[in-house]
């Protein structure tokens, strides 16, 4: 037996055309390469910090 309330929560309002601009601007476009670049940057900065502390 389905739980109507739970099922209803799965439905989100559709995006309206007036909101398209905001949606596009606020869209998180990061992909795996961005994540890896970020990780590498973090790793590099951490290494630099360790060298200075020594």
């Amino acid at each position, binding site marked *: *037996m*389905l739980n*109507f309330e739970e*099922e*209803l929560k*799965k*439905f989100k*309002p*559709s*995006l*309206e*055309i007036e*909101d*398209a601009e905001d*949606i*596009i601007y606020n*869209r998180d*476009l*990061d*992909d*795996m*390469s*961005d994540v*890896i670049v970020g990780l*590498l940057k973090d790793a590099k900065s951490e290494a630099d910090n360790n060298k200075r502390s020594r």
Partner: protein
Amino acid sequence: MATSIYKKLVSLSNVFYNEGLEKASVRDLTGAMESLHQSLKLDKNNINARNLLGLIYYETGEVVAALSEWVISKNLKPDDNIADEYMDMVRNSPSKLEDINQTIKKFNIALNYCHQDSLDLAVIQLKKVLSLNAGFIKAHLLLALLYLKAGNWDRAKVEAKKVLKLDTGNTLARRYLKEADSMLLPGESGKLVSDIASSENDEVIRYNSGNEMIIQPLKKSALTRTGSIWGIVLGIALGVAASFFLILPQRIETITADNKDKIARISEESDNKSAKIVELEQKMASMDKNMQELQGQVDSYEGVDSTSASMNSLMKAVDCYENDSSDIEGIAAALENVDLEVIKDSVSPEFLALYDTLMSKVGPQLATSYYNTGYDAYKAKKFDEAIANLSKAYQYDNTNVNTLYYLANSYSENGDLEKAKEKYDAVVTEFPNTKTAAAAETKLAEINNSGN
């Protein structure tokens, strides 16, 4: 190393793109979207994956999401990008874009109604949405959920099937379909009510109530089959009884009233006819009376010649006298049927003069001849003959009192008392102070006394 990782990511992104493309080609839109999302997570610059994702969004009715993918795609690759064509397609038909926007707004309103527990209104809104855009998968799914909530398993199943036709991999639709199947017709899972309705099954009663088909199990009692004939017989019996007790008396009353009217009419006609008959009978009696009177007149004329015949008879008598003045019998025979009393009004004076002349010549002889014959008949009690001869004798000679007296006696003896009284009276009047007159008075007195 970084380059090789990047190449691997791009390669992996393409793998997901291919997978998404393959799923999209078999209308597994949900699966395709998942693959394309994976592809774009690995490589946001995979333009084909982004454009395809936009197309899939557009197909499912998420136009704004589609447009945003295409816009990003265009920004990432401004030149030689098919997203341009897709966006131009949407831009070049503003009315369609407006319709799409209205569809989306109505869907959002319907969703709000659901949250406000106004499920009937939500159903109405969703039906409007789907009439504008039949490919709006989310609307179909929400409508299916509302039908499930309302217990309209059949309709929920129809909506879920529509979704699966648009998107074969839609797991939500499959769940709703399974739910509807489990609730609908246990033991006949997978069959629509309409399928059952269309199948040859005499064990159910089907009828439409609005847009819904009602399938009701047929109630059968032990008497249903065998009792049907008895039911018909009972129905006929009740019909006959009803007609006998309800219709027949009314019918009889009507017929009786009609017959009474007819009888009254016939009676009235009969009365009229009876009255006419009485009237006619009276007329007939009157006519009979007239006829008798006329017959009497005719009888009085019987043996008497008409005027012309009398003239001929007179001429014959004159001729007979000229030939032989002593031929009294021949003259009498010629004048046999001439009665001057009857024809004197219609004959000419010349006729009367000739008749008087002849009478002056042969009248007394004729009278004597008739008197003798009549008297003999009187003596012989032949009163009819006596009356005839004595009447003639008195016609030719009215001075003989005896002729008139015996004529009166003959009438009296013959039973004609009126005539007898008339003749006795004539004797008394015309021959007064005679013995015969005295005798006539005595006879008159006797007749009068006997009459009293």
